Every structure is written in structure tokens, then in C-alpha cells.
């Protein structure tokens, strides 16, 4: 039986979190795709992992730190060079309202 694991509403909610805009057709298709994939990954529930430590880091290392030294930064021109919109001082975006 094919049961949809993820509803269209859920897809919209996730898309909101991920800042993606979906039209209805895309949402339908993605709900189906993701449901299938999620259905597949739930295979992991077959395994008991009660006493298993999660592997949060690929290689066991710790305390790799840098000394507190200032090094020259790139110039303002270089930092702004790739910006879609700037005024020579700031990166510009559509006005941010305080309540956004």
C-alpha cells in the first residue's frame, strides 16, 4: 500500500523553513518523492540502536584552535564585488521591516 508519509501542507511548511517557493504542481511532486524516500529511510527503524553512540564527527579529533591573531582582511571592493546589489559601502537588500 502506498501511503503518503508527507502531506502537501507539510511540504509547504518545510519549504517555508528552507526558504523555497513551490507552486502546487511542484509541491505535489515533491510530496510524492519525499514520501517515497522517507518511506525508504524508515528502514533504519528495523535496527535497534539503543546503546549505540551517534557518530557526530567523522574523525575523532578535539581542540583544534587558532591563536588570536588578526590578519589582513580582503578589501571592501573585493567583498562587494560579487554582490548583486551594493552602493559601494553596504550590501543592499529590499528594505527589511523590523517586524519581518
Amino acid at each position: 500500500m502506498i501511503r503518503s508519509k508527507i502531506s502537501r501542507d507539510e511540504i509547504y511548511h518545510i519549504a517555508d523553513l528552507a526558504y523555497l517557493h513551490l507552486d502546487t504542481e511542484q509541491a505535489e511532486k515533491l510530496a510524492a518523492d519525499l514520501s517515497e524516500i522517507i518511506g525508504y529511510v524508515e528502514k533504519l527503524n528495523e535496527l535497534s540502536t539503543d546503546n549505540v553512540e551517534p557518530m557526530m564527527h567523522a574523525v575523532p579529533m578535539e581542540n583544534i584552535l587558532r591563536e588570536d591573531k588578526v590578519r589582513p582582511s580582503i578589501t571592501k571592493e573585493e567583498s562587494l564585488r560579487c554582490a548583486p546589489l551594493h552602493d559601494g559601502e553596504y550590501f543592499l537588500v529590499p528594505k527589511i521591516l523590523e517586524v519581518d
Partner: protein
Amino acid sequence: MSEYWWGRSASEISEYVKNKEISPVEVVQSFLDRIQQVDTKIDAFTQIWSDYALQQARSLEEKIVKGKSPVGPLAGVPVSIKEVICTQRGFTTCASKILAGYRSPYDATVVERLLNADAILIGKVNMDEFAMGSSTENSSIKLTRNPWNLECVPGGSSGGSAASVSAEECVISLGSDTGGSVRQPASFCGCVGLKPTYGRVSRYGLVAFASSLDQIGPLSKNVMDSATTLSVIGGRDPRDTTSVDMPLPDYSERIRKNVDTISMRIGLPKEYFTEDLNEEVKELIMKAVRILEKQGAEIVEVSLPHTEFAVATYYIICTAEASANLARFDGVRYGFRHVDSKNIIEMYKCTRSEGFGPEVQRRILLGTYVLSSGYYDAYYLKAQKVRKLITQDFEEAFQKCDVIVGPTSPTPAFRFGEKTQNPLEMYLSDIYTISVNLSALPAISVPCGLTQSGLPVGLQFIGKHFDEEYLLTVAYLYEINRGQEFGNPPLE
């Protein structure tokens, strides 16, 4: 031009160049000619840096003539770079619309190291958008074709890298491997692809897909050239805290020294030889195993019992990490921006929806979902635990053997469009490569023959953590005893 240089290995070229027997300018020109000749069919290159490559060659020539400073191990060797690795020269687009025209303000550590080794950067090559895919069909730039059969995909995500090396448009290419993205296209295109141990090569300047899995690796025609490249690009980098401070040997020298005396216990994981494995591929793999046996290898069966969970584990972890890594592409500081947005939220959403392709959006959504409130433990945490179990499988297997051998991919190269309709089916074709990334191990794919229809098949060797020396020696030993030269792709 008296001679074609594009058939030669890196070690040959650099020897000739260093000994002033050939001008690096001539070498580079020969490769540029080759690109002109074949890339219209292959479409591996996204940027061809003819002028820059010749300019590099001329400065190298000057340096060699002056004879003052030492000449690097990749002197005069043309190298192509995957679009996901940052270069100050040209563009770094990740084959995505969202980074179209993006110029990186800095060079990746591996690029700096290649330049220090006197390699010639000849251009950049195609890939699946943000390295997400197994066929390079997810590129927003173009399709790259398999040099062995132009109707087939080159594999992915480093499809351009593999195709450019296979078609002899360059000697070495740098790719990135998150779940098999170096080894699988190498296998599809009949070249060598090395995924080093996680932490061996700096990731600084590699546009992140899944940070805990990504690793840069070389593709080349033979094992020795990949070994030489690893000696150049590997080693601790203070800009990447996950790069490990461990001795980095001169691998090609070590291989030559060890190859005659090496002892081998080769493990064949029983889970890799099931009905999912294509019969022809299986036969070629077993033929290779017999060659190794003849060289004195002891063959043992090992078990990697959690293999069937690897794809699920991988797709949870890699998409979760990717959902955060790709959040920065918002049209504020660089890259594509949707214009005429009413407000900032609309700008973000439209920029990202128009800038990312469907597979990237699918993975961002999946990753967002598995991390979202209420699901973290069920998916992400669970996957990290299973990841531990998969890693432990390898630890146990390596009690019984020194190196694990099996197929790189369950099938040879497939046709365009064959798997694009079903994402899950595409994901499942990574079954043999992704456990290696999850376990942070080094692995290499070496060509082991052609199918009836003339498509290459790759043999995968999986080694122990940071023991690339042993891994490369065994792969080299196989390569020199392979006994069957299956030649070059039929491009003429």
C-alpha cells in the same frame, strides 16, 4: 607538432619537462588541441583556460631555464578542476544557476598546492549541481557524455572530471567525493578515481555539500598519477580543522618500494555480491580478484552486515548537512538574485527556487524535514547511530583482511534519462561507495575491464583509515598485472 603529449602519464610528462626534453608550452598546446578536437563531443569542460594555461606553461619554462628554484612534482601536467572547487581564476559555479558568473575571491587549498607543484590549470569541468547526482545530468550548464559511449552518462557527480581524464583532455582532474562522486564516474569512464580518508585533504575552498562526508580526490589514467597528486594536495591545513596532522608520504616512491614485497589479505564482503549486482560486472570483478590471488593475495570472505542501511543513513545525513550548507545561497552577497521582489522574504524564496535545480531543492527539503522539530531523533540522530554501526562493520572486517575489494558501482554507465525519473533508484546505485564516506575510509576505483557492449567497469579497493599507502600499493599491483589493455575510448 611532432608528438602527441596527451596520451602520456603525469610522471612521464613531468620528467620530460624537468629534464628540458620538452617545453611545457608544447605539452599544454597539445592538450589544448586535444580539447578542441574532442570536447565538442564530450562536453566535459565548462571553462577552457587556454591563455592562462599557456601563460603558466611559459612561466614554468622560464623557471626551468633559470634553474634556480626547485621544480614541482607535477611540472607541466595539465589538470582540470571540478566546478565545485574555488579558483580565483575564472568562475566557480557548482554547475548551478545560483552561482552563475560567481568569481571566488580566493583559491582552494588544493588549488594553491597544485600551483605550488607546478601543475598547469587548464580549465574547469562539469558536474551535477552542487555535487548532487550520479550522472552529471543535474548540471545547469550542459550534459557531459561518456567518452566510451556518447549515449551514456559519464557518472557523477564528478562526471566532467572523469570524462576529461578518460578522453585525455587533461592528465589529472580534481573531483569531490561525498558518496562516490569521484569513484563512480571513474568507474563509468574507465579511469582511476581516489577518495582519500576523510581529513587527509583540506576541504578549504571546496563548496560544501555534506561537510562530514566531502573529500577532494584525484582522477587519473593510472594509479601512480593519483598517488603523486595525493602527495601534492594532502596534509594538514590550518584553515580546515578537520584536516588531520599526520605524516604525508611521497606515495609514488613508497608504492615502488613496497610493491614487490607486499602481503595481501583481501576481503570480499558477501553483501556486495548479491543479485543486485550486474552479472557482467560481477564476472569482471571476480576476474580481477583471481589476478590478485595469482599475485599472492589470500582471499577471505568478510561481512559488512549493515550495508543495506547505508543508503538510507547516507541520504539523511547528507541532506541534513546540505540543507544548512546551501542556506547561504540567498542572493544577498553573491550569485543570482531574483529581481523585483516586494520584500526580503520573497527575494529569498524566489532567488532560491529559481536558482536551484529540482534535485538540489529536493535534497534541501529532505534535509530540512529530517532536522525539523519532532523528527531530529527519529531521523538524524538515528542515522548517526547507524553510521556508527556501519563504521564498526569495517573495523571488524579489517580484523580479518588488509583491504576490501568489490565493485564500485552495481552497473556500468547507464543511458541518459534512464534514472532521472526516479530519485530513489538513482540513490540506490551508490550502494557500494557511500559506506566508505560514512566510515571516513579511503578507497580507489581502478578499471578492470569492459562489458560486452564496450563500457568500462571499475574495481573498488577500500583501505584502512589514513593508510592510503597500502591501498595505493595494492591498487598499483593490480593495475600492472591486469594483463588486459582495453585501450582508449573510441573517440576517433
